[in-house]
């Protein structure tokens, strides 16, 4: 029930926040922040009731007790559709990330005077609810429902409170995700039908569908349906083009959520659904997926360098970083998969922070064009230092989470394909190029003395400090995350080969 409450609190909270609009603009944001933090505390409190040894338990499909938390109820029994939620280590990490970044997103738009505050905050809460639903749903139909639920409020966030090109960007975002989502729906329905064909029962339950025997050809097509949906969200090259527009045009909070959380649903989907449901087909597909990953890493980095729009640069850096996730997932061994999960978390923090800085800059300078910035360090040393930290995180500074992630991904990948690794390692160099050029253009150089700018305030610095500490923690003490995720990787139907068994190509 905790899992359902987690979502309900956000959904109903959203309505409440919308209603609270009538009492003034500061009410909705305070209320929204309180709701998200309350949700987080509620989850943490719930976790204390779970026996500690359960965290090391391998979650098995047939045994709900082996999951950290599970809950289900009938919905449409005729088609075997259930309200089925379950949480294991992977979902837990991502839900925590969602709630923390959700709170940060609300803080990030604290000083912006968005019209219709209540509806704005409500949309944020609803998006969070959808995302958490995606991370917890164990019924494919329900999963798809949440997949769509998180899309609509996000679309509204961009379309209503976005910047100058918002209608184009929001439409593009919507069409890309919607279209790919439809492919997934088709794949889900077909999978259920195939399952019906073999067992005579309709079921959309993840656990039932796991062992559906599939012909190779069918499996390939269905896998593609899921893969495309997830890789669009990830986003992987070459279906990434919605992302720069959406990120650039979204309001700050939208960008933070989009980059920090929404992209992770794609990676989560790949890990949770594509690989376990279609292990054989995914293995066949792995080389292509990895190629896409490498292409994303390099392409994103090159394009990031070319941008003069601060947000666009960060957006392309996301493409580059999420390429590592794709690589890690399809490199298909424990190290790389752990790296991919770590990258999801670390990238969530680093990119969210960079978008927050971008938003703060836009709010103060009314431009995102870095050619019109420069010398901001003098006027806003705190913001400069924070930006520097996250730029370094983004370029893969050892000791921070992103490095841990990228290193593990690449170590894992090296055992599979050294050449691909060498190509991806170019991403390390290009990441340095774009991150540093960003610092140079925005914060270094001669200051424009005429500007009178407000540095980061206490609230913003608190949010930043949370993310800084998180990244350092992930960089120096990443073990808790690994321990949480390890049972999940063990449970996946895919044969996750330990690194020692892999043959290195000469």
């Amino acid at each position, binding site marked *: 029930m905790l899992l359902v409450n987690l979502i309900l609190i956000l959904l109903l909270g959203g309505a409440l926040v919308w209603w609270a609009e009538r009492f003034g603009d500061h009410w909705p944001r305070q209320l929204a922040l309180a709701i998200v933090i309350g949700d987080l505390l509620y989850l943490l409190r719930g976790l204390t009731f779970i026996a500690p040894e359960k965290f090391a338990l391998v979650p098995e499909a047939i045994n709900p007790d082996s999951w950290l938390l599970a809950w289900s109820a009938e919905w449409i029994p005729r088609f075997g559709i259930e309200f089925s939620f379950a949480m294991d280590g992977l979902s837990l990490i991502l839900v925590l990330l969602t709630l923390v970044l959700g709170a940060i997103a609300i803080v990030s738009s604290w000083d912006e005077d968005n019209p219709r505050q209540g509806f704005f905050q409500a949309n944020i809460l609803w998006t969070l609810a959808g995302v958490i639903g995606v991370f917890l749903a164990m019924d494919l139909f329900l999963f798809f429902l949440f997949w769509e639920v998180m899309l609509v409020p996000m679309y509204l966030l961009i379309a209503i409170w976005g910047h100058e090109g918002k209608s184009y960007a929001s439409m593009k975002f919507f069409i890309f995700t919607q279209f790919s989502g439809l492919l997934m729906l088709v794949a889900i329905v077909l999978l259920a039908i195939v399952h019906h064909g073999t067992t005579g029962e309709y079921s959309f339950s993840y656990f039932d569908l796991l062992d559906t025997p599939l012909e190779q050809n069918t499996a390939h097509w269905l896998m593609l349906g899921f893969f495309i949906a997830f890789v669009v969200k990830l986003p992987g090259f070459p279906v990434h083009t919605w992302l720069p527009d959406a990120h650039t045009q979204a309001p700050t909070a939208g960008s933070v959520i989009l980059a920090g959380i929404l992209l992770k649903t794609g990676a989560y989907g790949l890990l949770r659904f594509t690989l376990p449901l279609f292990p054989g087909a995914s293995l066949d597909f792995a080389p292509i997926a990895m190629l896409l990953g490498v292409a994303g890493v390099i392409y994103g980095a090159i394009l990031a360098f070319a941008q003069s729009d601060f947000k666009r640069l960060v957006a392309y850096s996301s493409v580059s970083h999420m390429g590592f996730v794709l690589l890690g997932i399809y490199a298909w061994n424990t190290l790389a998969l752990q790296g991919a999960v770590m990258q999801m978390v670390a990238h969530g923090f680093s990119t969210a922070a960079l978008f927050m800085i971008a938003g703060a800059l836009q709010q103060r300078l009314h431009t995102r064009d870095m050619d019109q910035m420069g010398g901001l360090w003098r006027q806003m040393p705190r913001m400069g230092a924070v930006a520097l930290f996250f730029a370094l995180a983004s370029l893969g500074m050892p000791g921070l989470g992103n490095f841990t992630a990228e290193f593990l991904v690449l170590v894992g990948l090296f055992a599979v394909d*050294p050449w691909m*690794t060498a190509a991806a390692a170019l991403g390390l160099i290009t990441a340095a190029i774009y991150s540093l050029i960003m610092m140079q253009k925005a914060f270094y*150089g001669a200051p424009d003395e005429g500007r009178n700018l407000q540095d980061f305030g206490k609230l913003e610095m608190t949010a930043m400090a949370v993310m800084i500490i998180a990244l350092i923690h992930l960089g120096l003490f990443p073990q808790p995350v690994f321990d949480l995720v390890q049972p999940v990787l063990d449970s996946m139907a895919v044969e996750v080969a330990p690194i*020692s068994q892999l043959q290195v190509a000469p």
Partner: protein
Amino acid sequence: MLQAIWLIPLFPFVSSVLLMVTAGRMPRTMVALLGAGSVGLSALVVLGAGLEFMRAPEPFTLTLWHWMQVDGFNPEFAFYFDQLTLVMMSVITGVGFLIHLYSTEFMQDDRDYSRYFAYMNMFVAAMLILVMADNLLLLFLGWEGVGVCSYLLVGFWYEDPANGAASRKAFVVTRVGDAAMALGLFLLFTELGTLTIQPMLEAANQTWASGDTLAALAALLLLGGAVGKSAQLPLHTWLPDAMAGPTPVSALIHAATMVTAGVYLIARTHGLFLLAPDVLLLVALVGLITLLLAAFTALNQHDIKRILAYSTISQIGYMFLALGVGAWSAGIFHLMTHAFFKALLFLAAGAIIHCLHHEHDIFKMGGLRKKLPVVFWSFMIGAAALAALPFTAGFFSKDQILLSAFELHAPIAGIGPWLWAGGLLGALLTAIYSFRLVFIVFFGAAQTEPDKQPGWRMAGPLSLLCVLSIIGGWFVLPLSSVFPAADGHHVSGLVEGISIGVPLLGVAFAWLIYYRRSLPVTGITESDSGVALRGYWYRGWDFDRLYDSLLVNPFVAVSSALKSEWVDAIYHSVVRFCQALHRGLSQSQTGKMRWYATSMVFGLIALITLLGWVY
């Protein structure tokens, strides 16, 4: 005391964090105390630990915590302590402390005083982690850490975009090497199953025979990292530009410590390099070529710091040469003496710049012998050590290197004397350019008047470094247990004599050309080809231009060509197709009822025809 070595990097780290968090709100004296004091404390701990260690020299590992533990990949956050570590730590904290002390005066008037010390302390912490790391991943952490600090300090005066460009260049060029090194780590881990240095070297010994391809590849990749950090060919171009930073930074990072990290890396993993003799020879050749190229370039520079920068590249070339010929101890020995005398030279140069209104051009100096006596004597001693004049620190280390090179026979027989001859030519050039500097800056007519004298915080470190530059050669480094034993030198007295004599010859040349101006060289230097050649050398053999046209410009071109998002064009064409379809169909909606009726008739006809067809 030995169990407390984790304090050594912690002091500067904590100080750095404190300085960052207070963000300039701390009073200056406090900043200075914290900045220099933390490094001093570390130096004291190093001293204590070193004394205790030397009583019972047994290498040991201090594990702080498990860093990560994933499927056999379990690097720890652990420090390894042996004689090599001790030497490196002593240099870093000792020279580092002197330079910090010097900085407290040098940077006095800078508005970002505390930011400077925050970066500097962070650098010291990272550098200490680099040399203390027990595994390559932790070493890589320190490695990147010093790279970042170098970036921050080169671009310290951020308001000038040129400094930003220099710092970015420094970071990105070394990053190229770092990427290679990272690949090396992947290869080593995949093949050997661990990154902890000592077990890894043992595993390498057992897994690979000498000359194994994979061992060579691994060594080559590590070498890639080393040449990047140590500014050797082909990744040396960043160091001269890195002189944009404050001079003490150049002394600490770009002369004494960070740039020698590559040397340290190769020395630390020498077991691996011994398995790859070809790569080892490559190390020697890289060192030799670099030292010659850099020496020629140094001969033609005007900027005092650039001369020293090229000289640093050249001297690190000597260290690589030493490593390449298997003279490990000699390489580290030279690393240490070089740290002394090059730090001395940089600090002295810094003092000149400080006292001469930030003047960098040596031809605008001159006659400073009387005006700045302390600086003059410091510089003189430093230059002597650099030129390896007998009985200075540089003499002993360089002599060892050259003799070891002379004796090299493998893997190509008879290559030793050639390496020796190359090194000797380098030594000659070194002597010439260092005394060119001395004669032009300190002798002759005065060009610019100094407006102040260095205070005690600058003079003190200078004097101490002077002493070290002279007596440093008499130190006996306790490295025999770390490296495979080298036999004593059995070269003839003639070779020995030539090695000693060449630097003196160089000084004589410099004296004749730049002081007495009695050697008729203008005929050569002012001829057309002479001018062209000097220009070529002045531009550092045009490496920058080569890389610009080979890498930088294509990258920029590609990125700006891709900026329009060609991938998006595919989606846009789908959109345009839909729009065209939409326009066509909506144009058919004329609103004329008669047209609708007609189209219904068309449909009817089509339908009936279809039915007729089917049935």
